[in-house]
């Protein structure tokens, strides 16, 4: 798993009171001076070109900074930042000598966090909400968008609940459409703000060529859905939001995280979707990630995916029966049935896929997404075994 954020081993030349900076990382010593002035040079040899805004080096290369030290700001990165590449974009925070990699050129799924605030409190939230003023996060994102390569294939907007920014969120989408006209956008939202007619009309008015909002729906039973997201009226407003979005022909994905609180009624939810929400564009059934609140609620949430494999199969059969495009994420191929396997998508994250030792002899390893590292570390199915396809 990649550590996108962290603390510098050492930061020089930028006192604590200095403002945050967004910088493009480069390893190109021939960068024209006019661009180098705003870029961070990543050193891996002693001969360091002059004219860059900041000089970075990984721990094991820190001696390369000696020459330029004192003439320009320098920062030493921990070994965990070794994934950094030319073209990536980094935020440098002198206040606590920390950094965050906001954009990776080689990632298919760059996600931009727009806020940590949320009006839900999901039992299995992987990004536990914080009620803090985070307008500055949007400031940074608005500065980041113009820096992104126009060739970026896809961008995600996540949170917290991005729509809590209201009009500013809609404006951000419009900005992104103008600056990155060919970049697909995937928004993760609980969908409730779209119950507001004016808001959803503003959203639709952008007429983005490739925009999808992924909305979680955890049950056909409003009580159970509200329980999982820990919010009253969530189900009602979410459904209204979905109806409004489709009324205005916006693309909607339904997402279901599978765990002990949602699995029992999954086939009923599939039927509910087939009868009431047949116009959604796709459904994503997702395996549980053991991060955030999940670890604290593990007893309520954990169920071995192998044990629910036939329930999952029923649900997939129903969705396929209704011709709803369906995909299964974050399930190892050995814990799902034959009929479900064609629906499994290799993990959408390009973070290093991890496997168990027992996977070494599995015939399906190349197609299997493997595990989250949190799964390897904390909890995974007891039934992981190599599949032999003779």
């Amino acid at each position, binding site marked *: 798993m990649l550590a996108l954020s962290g603390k510098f081993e050492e930061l020089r030349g930028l006192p604590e009171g200095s403002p945050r900076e967004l910088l493009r990382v480069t390893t190109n010593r021939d960068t024209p001076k006019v661009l180098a002035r705003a870029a961070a040079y990543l050193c891996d040899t002693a001969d360091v070109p002059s004219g860059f805004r900041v000089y970075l080096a990984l721990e094991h290369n820190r001696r390369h900074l000696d020459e330029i030290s004192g003439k320009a700001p320098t920062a030493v990165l921990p070994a965990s930042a070794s994934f950094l590449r030319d073209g990536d974009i980094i935020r440098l925070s002198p206040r606590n000598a920390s950094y965050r990699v906001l954009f990776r050129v080689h990632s298919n799924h760059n996600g931009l966090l727009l806020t940590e605030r949320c009006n839900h409190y999901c039992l299995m939230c992987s990004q536990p909400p914080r009620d803090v003023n985070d307008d500055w996060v949007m400031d940074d994102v608005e500065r980041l968008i113009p820096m992104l390569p126009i060739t970026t294939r896809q961008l995600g907007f996540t949170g917290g609940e991005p729509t809590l920014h209201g009009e500013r969120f809609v404006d951000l989408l419009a900005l992104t459409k103008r600056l990155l006209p060919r970049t697909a956008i995937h928004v993760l939202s609980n969908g409730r703000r779209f119950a507001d007619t004016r808001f959803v009309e503003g959203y639709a008015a952008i007429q983005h060529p490739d925009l999808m909002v992924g909305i979680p729906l955890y049950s056909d039973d409003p009580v159970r859905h509200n329980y999982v997201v820990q919010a009253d009226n969530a189900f009602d407003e979410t459904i209204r939001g979905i*109806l409004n979005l489709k*009324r205005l022909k916006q693309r909607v994905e339904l997402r279901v995280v599978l765990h002990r609180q949602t699995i029992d009624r999954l086939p009923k939810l599939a039927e509910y979707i087939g009868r*009431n929400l*047949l116009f959604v564009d796709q459904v994503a059934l997702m395996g549980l990630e053991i991060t955030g609140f999940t670890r604290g609620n593990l007893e309520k949430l954990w169920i071995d995916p192998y044990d629910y494999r036939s329930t999952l199969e029923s649900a997939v059969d129903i969705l396929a029966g209704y011709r709803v495009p369906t995909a299964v994420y974050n399930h190892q191929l050995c814990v799902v049935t034959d009929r479900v396997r064609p629906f499994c998508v290799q993990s959408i994250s390009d973070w290093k896929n991890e496997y168990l030792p027992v996977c070494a002899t599995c015939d399906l390893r190349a197609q299997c997404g493997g595990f989250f590292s949190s799964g390897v570390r904390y909890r995974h199915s007891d039934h992981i075994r190599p599949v032999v396809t003779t």
Partner: protein
Amino acid sequence: MSIEKKIDVDLSSFNLDAIKRAAYRCSNRFAFDMVIAAQTASCTLIFDDDKSSDFVELAISVFRKELLDQDLRQSIRAETENVRNVILAHAFSLTGLLKDEPVQGD
């Protein structure tokens, strides 16, 4: 010749509409006659004389069951009449033209 069976129905338990609907449903089993006096409907079920006693008993039990069901249907109709009108009004309203509505299957 025909077989006649008499059944008294208490009109404080079942109203006339329920009795008529129940009788209608059974009209392939027997012909039906009714005389109302005060709180009682005196019903006569008229069977063809070639019908067996099993057939007659079954028909009577079907009639009684149907009375109960009709009573239930009336409760449902009474309770849901308003919301039924709301749903129909929404379904066929002219605001939001048909082609703007998200249609299942499109």
